[in-house]
């Protein structure tokens, strides 16, 4: 099936009433989640995952994907209007976005953010449509050794791109791999780490793990912030509908930042660990670097909004490439979508386009439609999103916990899963307070079975010889890249700590002189 045929088939699937509704519902929830600080796309996808059990695989993924890229749109609203990022990837938008709002230009900021997101999202979908099929065909050449090497590269990249300590990121990845090894071993069916508990023989469920780590722990962290509830005055800078449209000059100033942001974001999104945060920060840094007036950044320049917002949306579409063609999720939210596909009996990977074209092309086509929905939702309905910000904490957070409990229980109708939910809630809380990132843990949990089974299959095929991992050019290149990434990370960490030590000695010396 060529691309044009595929897209026609995809639009045929996406335009059914059920899928249109799923898409609309997904982007609506995504925008709401993006607007509301506290719960992110991972938590909301985890919460709504049980709802998808009664849907077919295509509708389920369309809805969950809509939530994911929808949050990229919603996050900018609070960044611009109240200087509080709705999502982590909108942090950078606060810098110039809020300044624009303070200067009475909230409308163009919101408008260019929405239009830029739409353009970038469309470019991202085109990239996905064009690149995914040839990549999937290439990936058909992958055997167990290549898959093992690819997963190792994914872990190396996740560690390298971690915003905190690489060592801690790798520790989390290993913890995820260990959680994944609980249950019956794949080949010998020997129970591992079940400690005699029959509930653990089928392993730890994805839903209680995710909901606990992202839902319950996030609620507890948010509730920890004691103090009187402050009413957010988002209406102060909220523009009227006709003020949302950027001027000709705004468009002229934003054209290249949107274009560059889309490309940067898309390429970063393809990488495992390459998130919307990395994309938006990279775009801002580049725009500032190449601008003729870098001193204007931070004072309310539209380029500082257009570039990052485009980048994080394009990254959201790019993240679907490794998921749908290789079965490798790039982050925790995407890992959840992978989990949803598995629950529905669809295994994403090189054969997805061939065996389930309705899922692949349906999801791609729905992204075009979803981007249109998001443009409509984010411009005329700004007032509604602004009102959402004043939902009291004492209503929102207990409801989230309630939905987590229902979600965890409803997977297998097993009370043990509710216990697991609270265990992971506690664990997630402790890990976040200790500055451990959870995305590598999720990746480890999802990719653990793939890593172990591909390693064992490779060894069985080679009769126990290790040279199978370097016998194919693809596996050798992937392993070399993993080594290079780890080496680069180690060298840059050592250089940074040497520079810090030198700076510290300089400061001590100058203090002694004084």
């Amino acid at each position, binding site marked *: 099936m060529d691309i044009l045929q595929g897209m026609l088939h995809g639009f045929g699937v996406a335009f059914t009433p059920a899928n249109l509704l799923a898409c609309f519902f997904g982007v609506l929830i995504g925008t709401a989640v993006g607007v509301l600080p506290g719960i992110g796309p991972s938590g909301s996808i985890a919460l709504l995952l049980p709802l998808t059990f009664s849907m077919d695989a295509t509708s389920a993924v369309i809805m969950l994907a809509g939530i994911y890229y929808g949050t990229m749109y919603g996050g900018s609203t609070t960044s611009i209007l109240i200087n509080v990022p709705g999502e982590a990837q909108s942090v950078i938008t606060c810098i110039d976005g809020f300044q624009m709002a303070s200067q009475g230009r909230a409308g163009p900021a919101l408008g260019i953010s929405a239009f830029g997101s739409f353009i970038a999202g469309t470019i991202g979908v085109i990239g996905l449509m064009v690149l995914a099929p040839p990549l999937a065909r290439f990936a058909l050449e992958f055997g167990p050794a290549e898959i093992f090497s690819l997963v190792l590269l994914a872990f190396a990249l996740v560690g390298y791109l971690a915003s905190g300590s690489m060592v801690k990121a790798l*520790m989390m990845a*290993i913890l995820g791999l260990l959680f994944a090894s609980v249950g019956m*071993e794949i080949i*010998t069916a020997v129970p591992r780490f079940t400690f005699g508990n029959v509930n653990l023989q089928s392993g730890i469920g994805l839903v209680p793990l995710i909901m606990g780590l992202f839902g319950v722990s996030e609620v507890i962290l948010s509730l920890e912030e004691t103090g009187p509830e402050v009413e957010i005055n988002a209406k102060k800078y909220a523009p009227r509908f006709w003020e949302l449209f950027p001027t000709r000059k705004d468009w002229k100033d934003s054209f290249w930042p949107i274009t560059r942001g889309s490309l940067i974001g898309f390429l970063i999104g393809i990488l495992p660990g390459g998130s919307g945060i990395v994309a938006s920060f990279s775009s801002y840094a580049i725009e500032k670097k190449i601008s003729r007036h870098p001193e204007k950044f931070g004072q309310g320049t539209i380029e500082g909004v257009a570039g990052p917002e485009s980048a994080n949306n394009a990254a959201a579409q790019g993240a679907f490439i490794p998921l749908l063609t290789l079965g490798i999720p790039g982050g925790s939210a995407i890992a959840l979508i992978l989990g949803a596909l598995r629950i529905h009996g669809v295994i994403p990977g090189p054969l997805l386009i061939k065996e389930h074209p309705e899922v692949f092309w349906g999801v791609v086509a729905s992204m075009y439609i979803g981007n249109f929905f998001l443009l409509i939702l984010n411009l005329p309905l700004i007032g509604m999103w602004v009102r959402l910000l004043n939902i009291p904490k004492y209503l929102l957070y*207990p409801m989230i*916990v309630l939905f987590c409990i229902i979600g965890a229980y409803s997977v297998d109708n097993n009370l043990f899963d*509710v216990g697991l939910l609270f265990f992971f809630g506690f664990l997630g809380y402790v890990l976040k*307070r200790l*500055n451990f990132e959870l995305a590598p843990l999720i990746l480890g949990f999802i990719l653990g079975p793939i890593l172990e089974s591909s390693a064992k299959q490779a060894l069985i095929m080679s009769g126990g010889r*290790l040279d199978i991992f370097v016998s194919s050019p693809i596996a050798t290149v992937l392993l070399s890249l993993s080594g290079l990434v780890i080496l680069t990370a180690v060298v840059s960490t050592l250089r940074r700590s040497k520079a810090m030590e030198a700076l510290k000695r300089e400061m001590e010396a100058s203090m002694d002189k004084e």
Partner: protein
Amino acid sequence: MLQDRIASLVFVVLGIVVMIESARLSLDNIHNPGPGFVPFFLGLFMVILSFLSLMAPDKKVRAEAFWNNWQRGKSTFFIFAGMLVYLVLLKMMGFYLDTLCCLIYLIKLSGGRSFKRSILISIPTMIVIYIIFGRLLIIPFPRGILGI
């Protein structure tokens, strides 16, 4: 930072426990790995990385330790205590009754102004949950000794 070092030590211990348990499962050899082979090496890597973390702690750890702010710690303690009590009583009280009590407790803890308001919010919420999940989606929630 002390809490960072304690966390690293906990992971060292975890890694060692995993290695011991994996060895019990049978490692066999690299040419024909047994069920404990992969977890054994995961445990080993965990121990190595934890030692690295112990020797070079992350300087970006939040400055405040858990136990420095009792006000904050108090609310977290009460939330987890409530969750534990919820779990213990779930089978006995049944899902609806136990969750109703939990909801009232969480709303009050989250800054809901009075118990009366918490109850007025929780009861209709549980009725909606019963209709949607209990009757429409027919999820078989556990019923307690009262049959609710």
